[in-house]
């Protein structure tokens, strides 16, 4: 399944990057991220704990950075993310690409693409839910990041419940509708997150994605 989207945040790319590189900020921005740990130069491990609809869950994930390109105007990182929920007999693997580019003077666009494989029991149930949840997570993440960038909280749209992209500093085009989606082979749009730099910073990407997975798991556990 492919997911892709982009959203802007009210800060210059440099500032956004700086925040990306700050694990504390990221932990605060990523819904449910409780742990982020660097195993070595390229590999990270983390844990997401979340509660959705009164169900608590936790899921471990790992991220392995594949490539980084920082020198161009658009900075980009690719990573492979993996998570597993043993109880649900399911695993997930995401090939992710995240890019950050400037937009005007004081704004940056974060774009993501991900190719997600969801294997096991969840895989036969999840597609519409993932597509939907990915938007939700994106909204939450974008909102938190915007606040971290200094945007006034009360001017931001509510993320939960009926969150429809509004004309506030956080503008969120709907995930690119994929006009050619072929029902036999879901190829649509997608997204991945990413972070743009060698050291601790890329975690954000990993964490956002994995929190998506985690939410999905929680949602299904809740039995909807």
């Amino acid at each position, binding site marked *: 399944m492919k997911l892709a989207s982009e959203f802007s945040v009210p800060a210059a790319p440099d500032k956004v990057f700086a925040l990306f590189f700050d694990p504390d900020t990221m932990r605060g921005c990523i819904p449910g991220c409780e742990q982020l740990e660097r195993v070595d130069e390229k590999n990270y491990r983390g844990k997401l704990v979340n509660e959705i609809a009164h169900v608590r869950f936790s899921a471990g994930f790992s991220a392995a950075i594949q490539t980084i390109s920082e020198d161009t105007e658009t900075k980009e990182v690719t990573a492979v993310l993996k998570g597993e929920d043993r109880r649900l007999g399911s695993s997930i693997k995401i090939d992710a690409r995240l890019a950050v580019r400037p937009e005007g003077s004081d704004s940056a666009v974060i774009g993501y693409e991900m190719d997600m494989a969801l294997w096991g029991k969840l895989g036969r149930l999840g597609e519409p839910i993932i597509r939907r949840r990915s938007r939700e997570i994106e909204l939450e993440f974008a909102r938190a990041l915007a606040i971290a960038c200094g945007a006034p909280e009360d001017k931001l749209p509510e993320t939960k419940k009926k969150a429809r992209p509004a004309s506030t500093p956080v503008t969120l085009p709907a995930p690119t509708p994929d006009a050619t989606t072929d029902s036999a082979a879901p190829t649509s749009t997608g997204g991945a997150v990413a972070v743009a730099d060698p050291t601790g910073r890329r975690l954000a990407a990993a964490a956002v994605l994995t929190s998506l997975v985690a939410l999905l798991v929680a949602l299904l556990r*809740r039995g909807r």
Partner: protein
Amino acid sequence: MPTLHRPDTLDEAVELLSTVDNPMVYGGGTAIQILIKQGILFADNFVDLAGIPGLREITPGAGVLTVGPMVSVRRMETDQRVRAHAPLAAEAYHQVANPRVRNTASAGGNIAHGDYRLDPPTALLVLDATVLASSVRGTREIPVREFFVDFQETAIEHDELVSGIRIPAQPPGAGRFVKNSSLGENDWPCASASVLVTGSTMHIGLGAVAPTPRYVACDATGLDDQGAVDAALAAIEPELDPIPDVRGGVAYKRRLARATVEDAVRAAWKDLQHA
């Protein structure tokens, strides 16, 4: 293994919901049983409403019909009072799934399920029904137009249950429900629409074409059938936000939504002319 509770009263039921771990209301079980079989449901306590007297009643009142949560979908389809009072609702319930599911599924479970593809909500939206939600804190009224808050999420709190649905009498005019599937005829709908034309207003309830059932209304003063179709299509446009899946991509689902609404509007206009 989850525990099954069979309370005898509504008070007992809501008490359970507020005290036991990870509870889940058990209505007809048609949705729950499937999730259990697939091994992806992890509720610890089921609170079965089947044994509570009175929850299967349909109670006529002044201009409203109050439907108990355990009234079966099948009865909503066949009951003479529902058919006389809100024929559009009866028609939407009639088209749910198949007789086996309709005989077992409950009216309360149907809306509580909160799926974006459900048929009956489209009719309840245009009829402006009210959902009664009960908990240890008492019973509150939720307009159905505020009930479906997000993808598979309703306004029901975790310790609440749907204790009734109040359906106002269908006003004079014309009402039509149309649904289309995209694969097998008997599959879940890929687009559904309830259209209710009363006086100068056209109310439209949409199913399966956005993360939640959607409601819009538009002015239909002086329109002919083509004008009404154009107005309806313009009104629904901002609401269309389909989720692509094995049943179709975004473009196809949008198209099918428009075709479905057009069919419902034309049929309603025909009814108006023949009335």
